[in-house]
């Protein structure tokens, strides 16, 4: 026989799993710091790529200047300047990453907790059904 309450709970779980759960559930397999750390590593890669692109465009724009003044440019000072700018860029990028993924983790964890709440209810319903079946069985034996 179909247990209505169980179907309700399982439907809610299925709706969540097919929607937000797809991104939330894998997220909560990590501890908060591990998850944010993983995203920070991704951001270091994407941020470095973005900075490299910006540098390439800058160099392209200043190509004529560089060609004309190649002998007068202090390469060390120029390199240091770029490194400092890179460090500032990355700090800003990583701080934003930290806040964004911290909020995401908090929201995702809350949703997953609700999901596990439904899961617990389903388990309870299964246990109740099991007990009912056993007692019916015993009653049948006694009567038989």
């Amino acid at each position, binding site marked *: 026989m179909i247990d209505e309450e169980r179907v309700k709970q399982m*439907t809610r779980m299925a709706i969540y799993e097919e929607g937000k759960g797809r991104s939330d559930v894998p997220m909560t397999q990590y501890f908060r710091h591990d998850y944010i750390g993983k995203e920070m590593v991704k951001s270091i890669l994407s941020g470095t790529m973005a900075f490299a*692109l910006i540098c390439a*465009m800058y160099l392209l724009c200043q190509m004529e200047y560089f060609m004309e003044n190649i002998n007068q440019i202090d390469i060390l000072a120029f390199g240091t300047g770029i490194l400092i700018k890179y460090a500032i860029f990355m700090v800003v990028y990583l701080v934003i990453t930290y806040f964004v993924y911290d*909020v995401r983790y908090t929201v995702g964890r809350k949703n997953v907790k609700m999901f596990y709440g439904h899961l617990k209810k389903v388990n309870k319903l299964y246990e109740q059904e099991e007990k009912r079946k056993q007692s019916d069985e015993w009653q049948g034996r006694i009567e038989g």
Partner: protein
Amino acid sequence: METLLEWKEKIRRFYSKNEVYMVPIIKFFLAFVLFLIINKNIGYMKRLDNVAIILVLALLCAIFPVNAIILFGVMLTLLHLYALSMEVFLTGAVFFLLLALLYFRFAPKEGYYTVLTPICFVLRIPYVMPIAEGLLCKPYAIFSVVSGTFAYYFLDGIKRNEAVLGASSENATATSKFVAALNQLIGNKEMYLVLVAFVISMLLVYQIRKLSVDHAWTIAILTGILLQFVILFAGYLILGIDGKVITLLVGSVVSTVIAFALKFLFFHVDYSRVERVQFEDDEYYYYVKAVPKISVTQSKKQVKKFNSNNKKKTAVHKGERITREALAKEMDIDKELLK
């Protein structure tokens, strides 16, 4: 007010019922408008400047997720830029790659806002975008509006400087075209001003609407619009940008109206849709269609008003005198309750 609430409920019911068709229609419409704007403004590749082509692209966007609109929009734009000049195309490609790194890292699910931002800029009502995001999204969603704003100003700059950027290579060197394409974006002070105004007002709206005070949404909308207006107005004066004040004023008023319309549609309304899910347990396979419950009363229900201080007035209805017994019988309650 009751009529408005009923309308709100009707819209919600209609959306919940027809969500399967509504979402593709909305996506098709948005994609079509966006592609049309791109073609009208920077339609340098004549073969692509064709309604049939954008219709086909918009139809594809209706099927795919919302980020497909962004992808097709970028592809269309790059092809037009390629027709203008190779240097502008390369600049555009790098620029969109940078935007992708920003957008897909922080707000990949807010595609609608990224698409709507340039559309609203063309319609001269971009001020509604940060307000809408502040009301409906998490703070990091601002990156979608920021990406849309960058894209709009980049393409607007290309359009304004098309004579320089599209000049034959005899008249302009490749490097000078790169410089011109980049400078029209990097040197655009108005864009920085708009970005600052958008980010600050979005964060403010988000913070205010989260407060547990009465009319938080209304206060958030008005404060956000006002702050945006002040920042932009002061910025235009300081930067010496002329001819923007009337657009700003009218745009802000229209944006306020739209923001209140959004409040009406989304404040405490759950547009949860009809869900179709399938799962199984030990005994059965379930194919479930979950339909959201309807909560607000419909006009079919009658509301009777009672006023114990003025029994005569209550009892006389359309010239008929109704006795307490008759009313109690009609309401199916004890007549003692009406004393």
